[in-house]
């Protein structure tokens, strides 16, 4: 679990996860596209995310595709959120989402 927190404690790495959340299964080139980060930096960040199991990769032909793996994040949530609070929290985050959408 330490590795997950370390991996998440960096804005560049969170933005890479955001990009995968928006579109799963990207190559290194896709992920570098439009980012103000060198290819080397992206590679380094992806290695840390993979180490923490937040990103998983598969090979398809000659391409290596990167996927967001939300299972460790789900487990962090489960550790501290009691089962009875979950429904309420889901309702609250839905409310927040709806309200923020209206402001757009």
């Amino acid at each position, binding site marked *: 679990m330490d590795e997950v927190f370390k991996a998440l404690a960096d804005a560049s790495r969170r933005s890479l996860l955001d990009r995968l959340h928006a579109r799963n299964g990207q190559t290194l080139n896709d992920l570098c596209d439009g980012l103000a980060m060198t290819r080397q930096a992206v590679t380094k960040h992806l290695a840390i995310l993979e180490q923490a199991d937040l990103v998983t990769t598969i090979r398809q032909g000659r391409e290596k595709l990167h996927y967001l793996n939300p299972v460790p994040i789900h487990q962090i949530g489960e550790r501290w959120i009691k089962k009875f609070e979950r429904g309420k*929290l889901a309702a609250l985050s839905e409310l927040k989402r709806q309200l923020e959408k209206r402001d757009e």
Partner: protein
Amino acid sequence: MSKPEFVYVTYIETTAEKLWTALTDGDFTARYWFGVRLRSDWKVGSIFEMVQGDGKVSDAGKVVEYDPPRRLAYTFVNLSEEYRDDLPALATFELEPHGNLVKLTLTHAGFAEGGKMLPAISQGWPAILSSLKSMLETGQPLEIPRAALKLEG
């Protein structure tokens, strides 16, 4: 083959044989999968069904691979009217023992363009896999209310 829409990985402290049973035995799946009992004779090409607590079959498809305790694959799609534009998508489970852990990789591919299965599934698998891990490691599944995931009951 098109690229998978999801690849989920979790490491579970168990044996490949126990994990295999948990993935294929309806009595086990009912404990961590929101009460869903998987039903099949697990022969390749046979029917695969998800039976809800009330006995209703919510999802159905076919067994595509059955290679215990290494590889399991089946297709399924929700049978309700709401999902009429969806096609059976392929879920593949790969089990790789690493010492006292088993790496479970789940890929899911072949969703219909613009269908409703994809968003529903993306809410479901992380919760099911966390609950499966918890059940095998502690004997207790996680009790996640369906409402929390906005899946229909």
